């Protein structure tokens, strides 16, 4: 229990190359952990907006919206997984969807671990020290990117160049998915309008 859910994720973020391999070949990844990491990341984002110190918190309190926060983290997360799966299927990637999902989820762990203390410490900072707050937030982000990179590389058994290429392609595909989604949505709306107009026409003409 403790081994899989706490010790392994912590081991993973410090030894990503070994651990992602274990995650893939020894079936050590747990979907619960990936989902948990996603949920905690969302919670951290919300907490940061709400409770970060006054000197670093430039959020207009009237715009804080937890639903919006969930959407801004979860939607790109799933989009990434789907787009990455779509791209790597075509590019001879070894990873299954589960593997991609696990790798992405586990990569979020540094963000959670760094955000918790930074939210607390930021409340005791003065202006000169806020540089550390921003530094650590950037570290969290780049650590996440690094893990995502190594995760993608290991899961699909890619070379470095191919991984970078795949990640860029994934971002493009994410855009395409959003575009197609908007297109479908707009068309459905027009279809609905059309049907509704016919209905109205029939109702009022008889």
């Amino acid at each position, binding site marked *: 229990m403790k081994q899989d859910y706490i010790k392994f994720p912590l081991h993973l973020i410090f030894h990503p190359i070994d651990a992602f391999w274990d995650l893939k070949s020894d079936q050590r990844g747990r979907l619960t952990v990936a989902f948990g990491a996603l949920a905690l990341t969302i919670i951290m984002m919300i907490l940061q907006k709400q409770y970060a110190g*006054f*000197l670093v918190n430039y959020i*207009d309190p009237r715009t804080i919206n937890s639903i919006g926060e969930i959407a801004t983290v979860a939607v790109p997360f799933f989009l990434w997984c789907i787009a990455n799966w779509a791209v790597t299927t075509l590019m001879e990637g070894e990873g299954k969807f589960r593997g991609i999902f696990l790798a992405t989820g586990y990569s979020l762990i540094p963000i959670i671990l760094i955000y918790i203390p930074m939210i607390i410490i930021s409340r*005791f900072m*003065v*202006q*000169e020290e806020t540089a550390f707050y921003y530094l650590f937030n950037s570290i969290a982000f780049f650590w996440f990117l690094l893990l995502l990179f190594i995760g993608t590389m290991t899961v699909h058994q890619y070379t470095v160049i191919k991984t970078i290429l795949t990640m860029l392609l994934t971002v493009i595909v994410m855009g395409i998915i959003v575009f197609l989604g908007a297109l479908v949505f707009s068309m459905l709306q027009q279809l609905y309008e059309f049907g509704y107009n016919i209905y109205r026409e029939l109702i009022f003409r008889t």
Partner: protein
Amino acid sequence: MARTVKRWFVLLAAVSLLLVNAVPAAASPAPYESYNYNYWKEAVPAPDAYLPKRTISGSDLGIGEFKDPGDVNVSPSGQIYILDSGNSRIVVLNGEYKLLRVIEGFMMDGSKESFNTPSGLFVDEEDRVYIADTGNSRVVVLDAEGQLVHTITKPESDILSTNFQFQPLKLTVDRVGRVYVVAQGVYEGIMQFDEHGQFIGYVGTNKVERDYGEYIWRLFSTKAQRAQMVLFVPTEFSNVDIDAKGFVYATNIDPGSSEPIKRLNPSGEDVLKRFGYFEVKGDIRFRNNPGPSKLIDVKVLGNGMYSVLDATQNRVFTYDDEGHLLYVYGGKGNQVGTLKTPVAMEQSGNHQLVLDRGKSNLVVYEPTRFGTSVNEAVALHYQGEDTQAVHIWKEVLKLNANYDIAYIGIGKSLLMEKKNEEALGYFELGMDRKSYSVAFKRYRREMMKEHFGTFLTLAIALICMLILVRVAAKWRRRRQIDREAGLH
């Protein structure tokens, strides 16, 4: 039964109608909406700082209507000089807005001279009147009796081109008699003349705002195309004023500029303080109105405050010395207090005057309780009397609880009195992160000094406890092993 109920309803409706009609009559005496920008750059309604009191037209004074009046200036002794450009005369009023005299012209070399579409004037401390006589390409200087002192004509200088036209528009004069002239078509800066009318040079130049899109476009154009494009030249100044320390305040009407107001030091550098949350440029957000403010006049009010007149929305914006927007009044319209084509603004005592060319009259604005309190508090703060300012800031907050500057003012005073913890709350309300940081640093140090001993004691106690627990556990385990080995 039903009829009675109905009747009651009708009666109730009638009474409610009466009440509804009774309320709005006393809602707002101002014909415009006053507002201020909050930290998030939203225009939030604010109490009126100034209310229109009366208007003064030429027929009120019994001298015939003004025709295209161009400028107004209040002399240090309190007389109001109105430049009636269309009638080429200067109308002088006293502080009670009663007519004193009319200057129609002056004697020069034995012959009577008059003005030709003058557009600017200034009165200095010795009541000398400087008139920018645009149509005659000269600046006329008259003494207090209306006698000619000298004129400033087209300057001779190597840095001026031969076909240069000297058409002075607005001017101001410093304490030693140097004249600063804004002239038409001169984008090199403000022309500076010495007390004898000799051209000294230019001060303060507007920077050219680079438009990078245009710049790239230019790279791909042919020579013929480039010749047809607009030139990047700095914009001209629109008006000048001078403060008691000799700093020249100047406005320009560059639509894209974020620094349309400048405070020029003697070497021509811009030293205006811009410590507010947003740029010192009039309106900062335009939802229903056409673009940025076009600032056409600036007036130094004393105590670091200055007002600017915006010709886009016909409003007056007043700032304190640190660049915080204090209040806004005025607007477009035809009522008393709203403006048609404002051209100049001035301060006379505690009144503010705006000259309206469109309606050919002078509008007198009187400060309200809110406006007076803000002015007083800003003045006290400027003079360093922050403790005295606190009472007035509290008064201001009663009238407008959204007034950020008041919170900051109170916070600063508390900070001075070393009440750091209370100051924190005020700075947070005023969204002043810099001062908040200062207060928090002191508060944190205070707390540390106070509680460091307790903290250390607790920490040592905790460490001792941990060690004890560890030792106990170890001892137990050893006992266990010993027991299993049958030693007990």
